[in-house]
């Protein structure tokens, strides 16, 4: 468990590496995040740090929110996020977390919200095969059978059907940092990440099974 950083997805482009290969990258503008609360086992029952990101006008927040941020002398910020930590005492209120926390070549996980696709059918949502489009067929994008007949006499829970697709939290694991620009608070990450440009993303060091 370690502290990550919150950021905004800006979009994708490509960069050439030393060997001349084109690498697809996603540009993220991340941080600076400000530590707004340090939670310890004694006071809160668990240990974590809470960080704020995304400056907004003062009128966008209500009094309790502003009061909470004022404790760490933080400007009005839209997003708060907690990172569970073993040892949160290394962090003080008002401390800034910047993109320098990451380095080129590091593996990271990116957590974001996928693009919402509304009410989607079987093919788009669950990759079902479709029926024949011609030769008199009227079964184009229908689901087929949803189960047996009189026994069990019901559709089993969890049967894949049409419904809302996207707009859910997605973690893309083990992405590589290609470049860190601390002047402009930018991180370039190899590959695609969830959401559209402008979406909030959470960049954390990769959690690898067997490592702490």
């Amino acid at each position, binding site marked *: 468990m370690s502290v990550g950083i919150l950021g*905004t997805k*800006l979009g994708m*482009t490509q960069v*050439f590496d030393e060997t001349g290969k084109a690498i697809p990258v996603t540009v993220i503008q991340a941080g600076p995040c400000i530590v707004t609360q340090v939670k310890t086992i004694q006071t809160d029952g668990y240990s974590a740090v809470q960080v704020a990101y995304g400056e907004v006008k003062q009128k966008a927040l209500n009094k309790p929110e502003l009061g909470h941020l004022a404790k760490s002398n933080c400007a009005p910020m839209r997003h708060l996020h907690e990172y569970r930590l073993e040892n949160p005492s290394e962090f003080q209120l008002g401390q800034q977390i910047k993109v320098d926390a990451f380095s080129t070549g590091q593996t990271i996980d990116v957590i974001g919200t996928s693009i919402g696709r509304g009410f989607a059918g079987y093919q788009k949502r669950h990759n079902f095969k479709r029926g024949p489009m011609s030769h008199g067929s009227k079964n184009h994008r229908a689901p087929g059978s949803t189960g047996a007949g009189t026994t069990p006499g019901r559709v089993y829970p969890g049967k894949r059907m049409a419904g809302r697709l996207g707009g859910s939290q997605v973690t893309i694991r083990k992405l590589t940092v290609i470049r860190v620009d601390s002047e402009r608070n930018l991180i370039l990450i190899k590959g695609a990440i969830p959401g559209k440009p402008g979406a909030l993303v959470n960049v954390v060091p990769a959690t690898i099974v067997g490592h702490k």
Partner: protein
Amino acid sequence: MLHAQEIIRSIEAEQMKSDLPIIYVGDTVKVGVIIQEGGKERTQPYEGVVIAKRGSGINQNLTVRKVFQGIGVERVFPIHSPQIENIKVLRRGKARRAKLYYLRDRIGKATRLKQRFDRAL
């Protein structure tokens, strides 16, 4: 805070080449490709007709076609790649469309394009 496209364009601008000639579809070009050979670098020329231009910004590509030993060869070059040392326009050709894929179906004399002289080399 969000001027996403400006930031992305400035990242691309760092690697984009400014000394490239203006290339049109139908031109005959000579592309110098850097190749690694046993730890040594050398430039290999590749000459042919530009039959398509694709992409924009740093992702701009040229499809260059030539006939080598009776076999049509097409290579796609990302023109801003560091592997491309230089591009030289040898001849301006007259083309009435943006993609000259019809040249693939032609052989011999029929693949020639008329030269045009109103565009400087």
